[in-house]
């Protein structure tokens, strides 16, 4: 789901191996928070029909929320495993290693399931020359608008978002720090005294 220029990201996905690409794009989707996004994506997945696995990134690079994955899993009523480092399929079950702050946990779930994947889990392959050609010459990125989905208009875009942005601002610049340029021994002493004065040491 994204603006028309997201086409390029989908072409790249085709070039490295995706068989089919669908872009949900419509002004009606704009301004969606994570709940409305999960609803729109989930509605598209339901339209696609039978599926085995939904893979999401750990979190987006702009919003950093990490919320759409679990919200989508809940909407689809399927198991979720987040922060996945390693994944295997055995006997039609997902086996995944999850990385927590201080431990690693092995989980198992039936398909279909949703996983959110950490950056370390896999190195994306490079697109092949054939892949790149196929992405731009042979395959199409399908465009789905609101009318193509079986969705309740009140649950998408800004109207379907319980949260809204009240204000956007630049972070207050920190007061100018002190730069210590003395020779190492003196500099270490000055730093120690400053930290002690701030009750840190």
């Amino acid at each position, binding site marked *: 789901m994204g603006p028309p220029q997201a086409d390029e990201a989908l072409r790249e996905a085709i070039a490295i191996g995706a068989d089919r690409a669908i872009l949900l794009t419509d002004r009606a989707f704009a301004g969606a928070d*994570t*709940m409305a996004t*999960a609803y729109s994506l989930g509605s598209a997945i339901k339209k696609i029909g039978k599926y085995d696995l939904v893979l999401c990134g750990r979190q987006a*690079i702009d*919003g*950093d*929320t990490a*919320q759409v994955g*679990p*919200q989508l*899993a*809940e*909407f689809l*009523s*399927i*198991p*979720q495993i987040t*922060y996945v480092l390693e994944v295997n399929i055995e006997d039609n079950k997902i*086996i995944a*290693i*999850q990385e*927590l*702050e*201080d*431990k*690693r946990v*092995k*989980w*198992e779930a039936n398909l279909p*399931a949703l996983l959110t994947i950490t950056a*370390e889990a896999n190195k994306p392959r490079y697109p092949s020359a054939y892949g790149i050609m196929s992405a731009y010459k042979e395959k199409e990125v399908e465009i789905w608008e609101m009318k193509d989905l079986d969705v309740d208009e*009140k649950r998408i875009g800004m109207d379907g*978002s*319980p*949260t*809204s*942005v*009240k*204000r*956007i*601002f630049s*972070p207050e610049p*920190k007061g100018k*720090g*002190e*730069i*210590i*340029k003395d*020779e*190492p*021994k003196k*500099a*270490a002493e000055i*730093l*120690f005294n*400053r*930290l002690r004065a*701030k009750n*840190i*040491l």
Partner: protein
Amino acid sequence: MAIYINRDLCSGCGLCVEICPFNGVKLDEEDVAILLDACTECGACVDECPVEAISIEVIKEGVIDISKYSGIWTFAEQRDGKLTRVAKQLVGKARQLADILGVRVESVLLGHNIAELAQELIQCGADNVYLVDNPMLENYQTDLYTKAICDLTMEKKPEIFIFGATHMGRDLAPRLAQRIQTGLTADCTELTIDETERHLLQTRPAFGGNIMATITCKNHRPQMATVRPGVFREPEKDLSRKGNVINIKPDISKSYILSRLVKFLKLEKKLVKLEEAEVIVSGGRGLKGPENFPLIQELADLLGGEIGASRAAVDAGWISKDHQVGQTGKTVSPKLYIACGISGAIQHRAGMQASETIVAINKDPDAPIFKIADFGIVGDLFKVIPELISVLKAKKEKEMVV
């Protein structure tokens, strides 16, 4: 929430039986769908039914009466029977907000044999603790925690519900918010109250900390947020503080479990808990190689801290990934962060700029890290750090004598 089946509309096609992940619905002898005890009211059948015979009572904007919601809840995350630091920080912040609104602070504590943690939450400022003690909740499991907390939330109706933005909090809170159908704001670094409207103002960084956004959730309750660990102070415990511990018997069973915990992996080396550290000494490309990490380790040990690293150092294989600070690593906010030989790319700064005091040691005076440092030493870290270590050792010895 509740599921209703209209017997007159049901065509007996059985699609609901196929889609149900819980075996919670079957066709009766008249070929009409009926709900079974295993139904979790997940709603999968509602969308699947081609004749709209199944409906779910969903809370929608305008329908919910927000005046019925009161009190501030915190999720009391415990790991291995201990409260996390962020769990206590949340109670401290909730106390401040609750005093503005004139409402109660209540903590939700799930686990097994963890009753004594309830007292700790009360000492930190909670008025009530909902203690949900059950052997099945001993370790965190998404589906059981979601079910138990969702039931409690729907019954007691808090107006605000905050979670630590830990991996557990960020696994649980979105699943829960989606089930309750309310708003959730991720990874907040400031929470205040709009006193005229009584709304929670939730401020969070976006685009790697380049901009800040204040988010509100006006028409849905509870207003849910995850909060970045370390940005709020841990309250001082008041050992004489009294509160109520309310025992809750959760309505959970194995049938709710979708993802099964197989085991905790044994690791050769314990993973470092950077998020909980009060002091972090981080090394970057300027350390030149893995053989120089013991130098910053010695400094970290003297300060009672842990070792962090930039992505460059981790990618070079000098130190393991669990030490990485930054947008694709860990987000930390210790009292003291010392960056050694780290230039301070935006991705690194996103993970540590909320630290209370930042010290940078770098030989390049133009390194961006100096822009956010409270104290910067321009110099060769291989000369500066040993001097810093000897100053610390000397003062330590002196104090021991005194």
